[in-house]
């Protein structure tokens, strides 16, 4: 069999002047008559000047005021919201100035989300600014999902617990950060190789809140200046990559004004549908991590032809939203890294290590277009002393990161399995957020009773979840010797058998 000839320089032909035929397609929007419904006795005063692009979704039903809110004595004097739409993870920074207009001190502040957004909500964080003017520090606050009995139209709530109760007449400033996944809907849902990816983003121009908001502004940042259309809720301004909704004055609780933005977002949408991380502890000094990925490009689905000529020769115009490579940030001092899938090793990966971090750049076997899938496994070893510690009560604990090491990736379902060494007892896990937990048993090399596996599952993860978790367990070092002793005795028995065979005459006939 002849081997292929050595590759010489690989040149692709440039084809004359390229015609930019990216037609700006104007999509048809069904024009819905604005039907403003008020469910309460208070008349709606919202001066919504719906433009002809305005489209009301089901969410428009949320236009009403809820009177029976438990903390109506709070009000928000100023709210500023910044929505970052540059990647496929939507980041919302919300600055709230909360004022206690009631008479009783309160320490709970509610955040409201429409039910459609809650499903895509990955994380909510709240910070409070402390100190005066120059010496401001940020302190993290507890945030928990809350169910309220009389939530209008299925509104979901999160409660922020202040460290110091807010007395009557006082005010405080909260910084809230929350992230949405799967909130950019590609439209058109299918694109060809040379088209760029356009997406819809749906939200409200007004912040949904159970409190009265005196003044609010919303800023949206799009990845490029190319915005096909957007809903106008006056005053609305657009400059460059930024859009400004507001300021709007004096809105009642639960005011909602749907907006729809159609813009270009050519960043690939790497979505890990399922990730199983297995961390195996060996007290002989190694921590073996195996990560099984099911990766999909969550953007606009690829339609029709995939032409390699075009893809190779005109990379700026072809497959701009395709996923060419991924970057995984691994812990420092990583060793024996592998990257493979069901049918073997994938040779297109690079590892860069320095003293603080290791970066693994991986390319899937083929560029991922919208809707294309790839499954693969990344495995690596780590020195145990960096991650395993002894706690004060004579137990050991593993301190490891929870989330997915791939940068800028959404994980729909993550399973972390911590395989404890054989003979370890009383495992318990400490995770900074709620996860589903159970125990399993795994049999690895030379195991007799099996290893205890702590399994933790969580859905809808974003890189923010890459925080540390701990698994505590007790382990007697004597168990380390079980396997070497087993091997040694097996060899010993084998040699004894050989010696016995040579010295015993088994023949019947003499």
């Amino acid at each position, binding site marked *: 069999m002849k081997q*292929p*000839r050595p*590759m010489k*320089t690989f040149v692709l032909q440039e084809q004359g002047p390229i015609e930019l035929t990216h037609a700006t397609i104007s999509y048809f929007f069904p024009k819905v008559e604005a039907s403003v419904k008020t469910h309460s006795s208070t008349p709606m005063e919202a001066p919504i000047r719906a433009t002809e692009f305005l489209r009301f979704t089901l969410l428009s039903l949320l236009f009403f005021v809820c009177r029976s809110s438990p903390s109506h004595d709070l009000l928000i004097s100023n709210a500023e919201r910044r929505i970052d739409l540059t990647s496929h993870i939507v980041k919302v920074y919300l600055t709230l100035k909360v004022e206690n207009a009631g008479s009783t001190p309160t320490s709970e502040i509610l955040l409201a989300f429409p039910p459609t957004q809650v499903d895509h909500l990955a994380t909510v964080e709240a910070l409070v600014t402390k100190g005066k003017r120059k010496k401001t520090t940020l302190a993290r606050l507890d945030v928990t999902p809350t169910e309220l009995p009389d939530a209008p139209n299925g509104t979901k709530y999160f409660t922020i617990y202040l460290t110091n109760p807010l007395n009557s007449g006082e005010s405080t400033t909260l910084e809230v950060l929350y992230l949405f996944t799967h909130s950019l809907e590609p439209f058109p849902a299918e694109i060809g190789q040379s088209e760029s990816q356009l997406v819809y983003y749906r939200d409200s121009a007004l912040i949904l809140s159970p409190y009265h908001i005196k003044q609010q502004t919303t800023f949206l940042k799009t990845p490029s200046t190319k915005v096909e259309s957007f809903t106008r809720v006056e005053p609305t301004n657009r400059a460059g990559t930024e859009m400004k909704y507001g300021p709007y004055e004096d809105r009642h609780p639960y005011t909602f004004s749907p907006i729809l933005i159609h813009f270009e977002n050519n960043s690939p949408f790497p979505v890990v549908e399922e990730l199983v991380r297995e961390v195996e502890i060996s007290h002989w000094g190694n921590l073996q991590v195996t990560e099984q990925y099911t990766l999909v490009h969550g953007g606009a689905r690829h339609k029709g032809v995939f032409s390699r000529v075009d893809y190779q020769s005109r990379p700026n115009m072809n497959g701009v939203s395709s996923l060419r490579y991924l970057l995984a940030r691994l812990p420092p001092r990583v060793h024996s890294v592998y990257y493979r899938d069901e049918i073997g*090793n994938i040779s*297109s990966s690079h590892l860069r290590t320095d003293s603080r971090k290791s970066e693994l750049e991986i390319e899937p076997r083929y560029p991922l277009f919208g809707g294309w899938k790839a499954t693969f496994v990344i495995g690596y070893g780590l020195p145990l002393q960096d991650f395993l510690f002894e706690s004060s009560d004579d137990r050991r604990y593993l301190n490891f990161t929870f989330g997915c090491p791939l940068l800028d990736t959404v994980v729909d379902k993550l399973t972390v399995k911590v395989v404890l060494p054989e003979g370890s007892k009383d495992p318990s896990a400490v995770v900074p957020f709620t996860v589903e937990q159970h125990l399993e048993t795994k049999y690895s090399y030379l195991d007799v009773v099996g290893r205890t596996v702590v399994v933790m599952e969580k859905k809808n993860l974003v890189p923010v979840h890459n925080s540390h978790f701990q698994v505590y367990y007790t382990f007697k070092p004597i168990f380390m010797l079980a396997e070497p002793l087993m091997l040694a005795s097996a060899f010993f028995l084998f040699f004894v058998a050989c010696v016995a065979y040579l010295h015993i005459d088994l023949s019947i006939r003499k």
Partner: protein
Amino acid sequence: MATMPILPNMPALDLIKSFKLKTKQQELLIRVSILCLVYILAFITRLFSVLRYESMIHEFDPYFNYRTTLYLTQNGFYDFWNWFDYESWYPLGRIVGGTLYPGLMVTAALIYRILHFLRFAVHIREVCVLTAPFFASNTTLVAYFFGKEIWDTGAGLVAAILIAICPGYISRSVAGSYDNEGVAIFALLFTFYLFVKAVNTGSLAWSLASAFGYFYMVSAWGGYVFIINLIPLYVLVLLITGRYSMRLYVAYNCMYVLGMLLAMQIRFVGFQHVQSGEHMAAMGVFFLLQVFYFLDWVKHMLSDTKLFQAFLRITVTCAVAVGAIALGLGMLSGYISPWTGRFYSLLDPTYAKDHIPIIASVSEHQPTAWSSFMFDFHILLFLFPAGLYFCFKRLSDATIFIVMYGLTSMYFAGVMVRLILVATPAVCLVSAIAVSATVKNLTVLLRSKNKGVQTGSTKGSSSSKASSKALLDQSQPFQKNGAIALLFGAFYLLSKYATHCTWVTSEAYSSPSIVLAARGAHGSRVIFDDYREAYFWLRQNTPPDAKVMSWWDYGYQITAMGNRTVIVDNNTWNNTHIATVGRAMSSYEDEAIEIMRSLDVDYVLVVFGGVTGYSSDDINKFLWMVRIGGGVFPVIKEPDYLVNGEYRVDKGAAPKMLNCLMYKLCYYRFGEMLTEYGKPPGYDRARGVEIGNKDIKLEHLEEAFTTSNWIVRIYKVKPPNNRW
């Protein structure tokens, strides 16, 4: 151990003396350690591919074996045995359990089970990859015992060493080459060894063992036909040469009857074992042996020789007549099937070329060139006749067997390249006899001279001593030097053999052929992993029930790695189906689309080496598609694709060639590519020409995927246009 030294001097000496081994023990120690080393050597010399590439399954057929083994370990033996595979030969399907030799898969699954029972959590792929080297190691042990049986322990050791690194065997047993031959050569040699042992001892136990060895061989490889014809032939030769004995009678009858019954348990063999022409020789010899035994008995009863002569004549005539009539009737009534094409092509090398293009198209079925004999055997090629000479000098039942095995298998090796494999053990054994006997003679010569100076008390056989003494008397000064020179010559040759074998293994036989490697412009290694790129794309991004049409070479790989249904695959059981694919590939697009729609094809996969210069691509295989297609569908005519009997793809190519489906699919949009500096666009590096049709339009197909180096191109069949 019992007495620890109390006095410093004496017991220490005693201890040393007691540790000093006797000569026999020394010999045993050396022998065992050599065998252990050979065992390890045979294993590790086959690991080049794992070190160079990775632990992966190689080539084509091993992927099917791997897939079935995976199925066996996941679903159990019962499901495996009754497996109807919908993923191949669409729409016909394939009864896998009834059309394969399960020995290899069952062996690997068993090893896997045992390892898991012992809590070695290995992946089944690793087991499959290392099965062939493991069995190669076992083969060295068998070769040792076989050599010991036919000659002496020295020959056995040399045989073990020779076979451990012989390229002819390594070619089919490197790590990853998970094919039937990997275990079959072990089974073949083991069966032969057990049979020879049975003939030598006349023991029922050994012949029973050989029947089971035969059963294992039947379960592992179609090459068992060689055993079931060679052993009767051997028995026949023994009968003719007057070496008939009770030992032979016991060995053959037990082995044949039990072996036959066992072999019939394999579904793929079944009643063929008593009905097909290939197996008739064994049955004939079986009856002949009975007649012989009967005659022997009659001769023993009758004291009158004249009467016996008459009786002999009548019985022999009757027996031959009855046998011939039975055979004739069986043939005529169709009860005994005639020889298959493959068997014919073994006996007549030109048969396949004229009648069965599908057999002739396979590269490993080509007649062997001299160079490949040299490549695979090296010095064994010269040692083999020498060994034959030694065998003839010391004829025994065992040496007759090895001579016959060597000669017949050498003939077959000359007919087909892949059968070099079958000849390898015989060649190694016979050569080992030559090496061992020569070296032994030379050392005896050297040592007897030294001993002669002292006082001759050698243990060597009296005849050799006498002859060496006779030589000693003639020319003493030259003899020692000559012997030393010859010994050095032998070691030089053997060391050359070792380097050659290692070189061949590392350079020629350790490429997985799924991953291609080449040297880049700066001497760096460039990897072309296009096959797996394409198969993985198929696996992930096409509907699970998609049907892929490709030339049959890639069928097993597509089902195993791509997990998609294929139209034809490497199990070439249905020539018409393959010819249909060949016809589609060699027709115009609008004719081909009809065929493809009738076969429900969703994707078409072609392999194209024009960008990288990979020469074993579909364009170079295309004439076989035309031939095989034309063999069934006369509309396809080979001359239509040739210009003056010449196959070309450039401007001067035949118009049908330039517009057939295969050409279009391979070269679609290739005309825009600049592959090499200083060459026009559309320059095909595999064939070194500029292509003739650069403006290719596809009407019913669209490009679905092309790998990064263009080696695999996949096209999607468009759904029919709406009528309104």
